[in-house]
């Protein structure tokens, strides 16, 4: 296997008494789309800032493309791009001026600047808005512009901090299409997100909870973890009428350890000892008929829920 693009080893950040990032270690392979998940305040942005060399780690090491983020920051900066949470742009500058500014900032000269500028326009479809001030762009276009700005210097690694927060579903879908395209060209992407469906699209995911990285790996492998699939249990999807009533009926029964509503159905984690017929029976007692049961595999959300519970977490 190729050398990892991003290597973190025991990365730690303390602000006074508070440990924002606690001993985090992981690797990201070149060309991967690494999804970094976790609740607000769990330390996602802090990790990104340390990797980008703008925040000094309190402990541990991190290397990007073999360059140490503390010792070789200046060289490193040439090869990374960063798109912050707020799509930080210069509002008083037009789209074109924003792009030119970032190009110049990374030392692109006339020819190279023009070439890269054209490439990114084709990719992001920003042409119609070239003369528009950034302040007047809608959320989706701002995000595209911010990404184009972060890409002007053709970074090998692109960090995106919640790139899809607050934008419409179409723009979100289109952004992911772009990310897949970059990944296909060999760029490594490091994306933080709240959305589970986005996590499912990543080639690798990490989940940070209360400053600790509690899981990291390929989504399909994570779903096979024994913590997620305790021996002697199975996950089933129950489709029926009056789902909420059904949930109340089943939630506290012996042998049913997790029950969550998903639209018109509910997902259950059930002991093998509890047969499908027994579940139908419980529901029938509550007057619910036309019950459809089928086995399912765990989602990433199930994985994170199971692992969060194991780390003494959860809001309840």
């Amino acid at each position, binding site marked *: 296997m190729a050398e990892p693009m991003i290597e973190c080893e025991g990365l730690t950040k303390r602000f006074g008494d508070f440990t924002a990032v606690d001993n985090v270690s992981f690797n990201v392979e070149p060309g991967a789309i690494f999804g970094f998940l976790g609740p607000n305040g769990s330390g996602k942005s802090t990790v990104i800032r340390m990797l980008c060399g*703008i925040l000094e780690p309190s402990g541990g090491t991190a290397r990007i493309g073999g360059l140490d983020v503390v010792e070789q920051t*200046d060289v490193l900066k040439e090869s990374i791009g960063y798109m912050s949470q707020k799509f930080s742009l210069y509002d*008083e500058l037009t789209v074109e001026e924003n792009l030119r*500014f970032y190009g110049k900032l990374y030392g692109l000269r006339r020819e190279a600047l023009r070439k890269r500028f054209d490439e990114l326009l084709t990719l992001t479809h920003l042409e119609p808005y070239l003369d528009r001030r950034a302040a007047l762009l809608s959320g989706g276009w701002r995000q595209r512009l911010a990404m184009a700005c972060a890409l002007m210097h053709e970074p090998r690694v692109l960090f995106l901090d919640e790139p899809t927060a607050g934008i419409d579903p179409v723009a979100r879908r289109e952004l992911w299409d772009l990310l897949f395209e970059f990944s296909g060209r060999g760029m490594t992407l490091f994306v933080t997100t709240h959305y589970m469906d986005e996590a499912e699209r990543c080639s690798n995911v990490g989940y940070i909870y209360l400053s600790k990285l509690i899981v990291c790996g390929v989504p399909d492998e994570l779903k096979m973890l024994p913590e997620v699939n305790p021996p002697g249990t199975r996950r089933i999807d129950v489709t029926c009428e009056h789902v909420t009533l059904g949930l109340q009926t089943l939630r506290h029964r012996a042998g049913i350890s997790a029950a969550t509503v998903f639209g018109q159905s509910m997902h259950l984690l059930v002991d093998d000892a509890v047969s499908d017929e027994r579940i139908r029976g419980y529901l029938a007692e509550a007057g619910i008929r036309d019950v459809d049961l089928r086995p399912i595999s765990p989602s990433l959300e199930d994985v994170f829920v199971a692992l969060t519970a194991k780390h003494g977490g959860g809001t309840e």
Partner: protein
Amino acid sequence: MKLFRGFSAILYKEFISMLRDPTTLFFMLIPPMIQMIAFGFALDNDVKNMGLIVYDQAHTVESRQLVDRFVNTETFKVVGRVNSVAEMESEIRKGHAYAALEIPPDFSRNLRAGRSATVQLAIDGSNSTTALQALNTGAAVTMRDSIAQLLRESGRSNIPIEVRPQMLFNPAMKSPNFFIPGVIGLVLQMATLFTTAMAIVRERERGTLEQLLVSPVSRWGLMMGKLIPYFCLGSAMAALLLLIMRLVFNVPIAGSLFGLAVSVLVYVFTLLSIGLLVSTRAENQMQALQMTMALILPSVFFSGFIFPRETMPWIFYAISTVLPATYAIELIRAIVLRGATFAEYWPSLAILSLMAAAVFSFCAARFKRKIG
């Protein structure tokens, strides 16, 4: 070029931002001109036509001549005549007059008899400037009369000692000429400090600073790129203010225009560097504003703008030595009013240049390319 990496990019952006920000442009160009004109006219402490109350109990030719001589100095004008000491004092308390002249009934009798004739000049001492002027004028008028009489009586044709004053600079002794250069120093400071004081902290608030820090821009490139556009604007403003000085207040420039330009530019650079320093230390724009105010206020009092530095208590004198405004005002006065040559004014310019270089270097070298 590594040292100034990213300079041209920042310069490009800052110029566009500056030109697209009408509020800053307006506040940098218009209020300073208004301030300068207002200050320039308000700070005229040439005392003329002070109100004088006359209580003439003599009603003689001599008493009337004495009052006329007071008026002829142009320092006084008679604003009322009263008939008692009580009224006289009351008029001064009411603020109707700065001084009152009481001529006793025996004034002419004594004068003609060769005795000492006494008049009383009551002065409102609450304003020391006008009081001093009234006192000097009153003493001079009566002294001149007395000497003339003595000469007549003694038969001498000349007085024993005669002073022949020669005003070397500002021969008309117009006080605007003295104040205007100081006003330029202060007005420039107010308008320029704010512009760069907001420069970095604004980016910090908008979140764009983080984006800049991730890029390979160097601290020197960043600071220089931020400073230069405002340096251009500040220079334009300085030129405008000097133009107002010359054309509106008719203050002639006695020394070299080039020396003046260099001094003012160095001063503007120093101010902008201080602004940048504030900007890198402040956490938000409000804080930057407060820090700037804290720098501006001492300059008004301690820069020698109004009060001569040499008469200040040592602590204020010490403060004045670290204020760029002190040296700038000194330089402008020296060149504009006294026509000082480089050999004469270079120490102030050297100190100001050192300040500029030191503050800017400190600001760039100590700027942390990290957050948090």
